């Protein structure tokens, strides 16, 4: 297998105290990499850095051996796509939401919206097809988060950066999402997933570890308060 994404000594600061954190790891093609580290250790921040939505202090990321600054920010994010934990819903119907990315030059330049594929993905994630003409703002939290995942998969990125994708889901929906996450990187060559989820550790996925550089500072243990929605997701195991 080939290296898809290489995270090379990325350092960044988190919180108001400016604690410095180091992350290193390699995502293989077809693989899933789990970001390991306790709550509050900067896992979400790391995903945002990988998507270039904020800058690191130091370090580089390579996509198939090419440094990230060889890409325009637009090209990079279209290829290495970050999906936030809190689903973003645009005004309009579910269909309008799924089509929204296809109004962007970076997406339309190489891909057309495929309605059959949209319906098929919705089905895989247990979203009934009649939702398609419903106002997306009226969806439940769990439906919204799956809609956001469908929308993301439809634009066919190479690397998916998923932040707690099952946190808001009931067990049935969560297992459908997990199945999709497990199958998606292998469906076509050149794909991979970087995941932030407690499920990753349980599934013994390879780690992209986040280390606290201030050795004297001991990272706080995982607290429920940090991840209120996580309780529901716990039901999956």
């Amino acid at each position, binding site marked *: 297998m080939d290296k898809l994404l290489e995270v090379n000594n990325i350092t960044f600061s988190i919180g108001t105290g400016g604690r410095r954190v180091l992350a290193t790891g390699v995502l293989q093609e077809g693989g899933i990499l789990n970001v390991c580290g306790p709550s509050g250790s900067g896992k979400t921040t790391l995903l945002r850095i990988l*998507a*270039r*939505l*904020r*800058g690191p202090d130091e370090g580089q990321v390579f996509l198939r051996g090419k440094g990230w600054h060889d890409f325009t*920010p*637009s*090209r990079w*994010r*279209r290829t290495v*796509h*970050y*999906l*936030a934990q*809190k689903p*973003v819903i*645009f005004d309009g119907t579910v269909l309008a939401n799924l089509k*929204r*990315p296809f*109004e*962007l*030059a*970076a*997406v339309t330049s190489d891909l057309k919206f495929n309605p059959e594929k949209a319906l098929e993905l919705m089905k895989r994630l247990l979203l009934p097809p009649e939702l398609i003409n419903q106002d997306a703002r009226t969806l439940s939290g769990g439906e919204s988060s799956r809609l*956001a995942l469908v929308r993301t998969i439809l*634009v066919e990125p190479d690397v998916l950066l998923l932040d707690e994708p099952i946190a808001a889901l009931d067990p049935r929906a969560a297992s459908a999402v997990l199945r999709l996450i497990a199958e998606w990187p292998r469906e076509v060559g050149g794909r991979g997933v970087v995941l932030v989820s407690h499920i990753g550790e349980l599934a013994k996925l390879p780690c992209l570890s986040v280390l606290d550089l201030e050795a004297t500072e001991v990272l706080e243990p995982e607290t429920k308060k940090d991840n209120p929605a996580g309780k529901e997701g716990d039901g999956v195991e």
Partner: protein
Amino acid sequence: MNSGVVPISDFNLALSVILVVVAGGISAALRLGLLKALIWGTARTFIQLTFIGYVLKYVFTVNNLWMIFGIVVLMCYVAARAAVKRTPGVPKYPVTLAFWSLLASTVLVGLVVVRVIINPAPWYTARIIIPIFGMILGNSMNGIALSLDRLYGESYARAGEIEALLAFGATPWEAIRGCVVDAMRAGMTPTINSLMVVGLVSLPGMMTGQILGGADPHEAVRYQIVVMLMIAAAVAIGCLLLVGFSYKRLFTADWALRSEILQSRR
């Protein structure tokens, strides 16, 4: 018909203080705590306007092009500063950008008005230029303050949406276009509304002034029409320039949303 201005004598002007005494009496009786501000405000009104009266008289007499230009620039600067104070939610307010937006829109529209439409002799007649530019500025100042405030307000409120679009590979413009549209609308709506109701709900100050000054209402109306349209144009141009310059400041050089936009708004 043209009877000219009915003059107000010094004695009669002093009598107008009675009106303030009434307001002061209400403030004292109800303990509104506004008495000091009222007295200070009254004094400032007398001093500032008397001063401006002398300045204008001097400027109108000299009527030097460069002096007029300097005054216009000064007015733009003061308007840009005043717009700052109306948008407390905008961090690191772009005063310079506001200044250039106001100057460009005002000069552009103002020149069309004084050179093409009114065209006095000479075209740089201070008596025409300064009130015209003042009216343009007063309105575009409000317009740009509203649109800038809305641009930042929308960006804070819709930071998640903007970032989601960026994550799909949107350019900053694609990601923020919705907020820019709302900001432009917010800046221009009051002006457009005033185009709808002018003359029905309110008689504009300028027209009222001309009529009090003894002008034929027909002439006053013609001026007012020009003024309304030039204000609409100046507000549109001013908002467009400022919002166009400003939206980029919400993003980093790497096309990411600035971190303060993702945080709580103080």
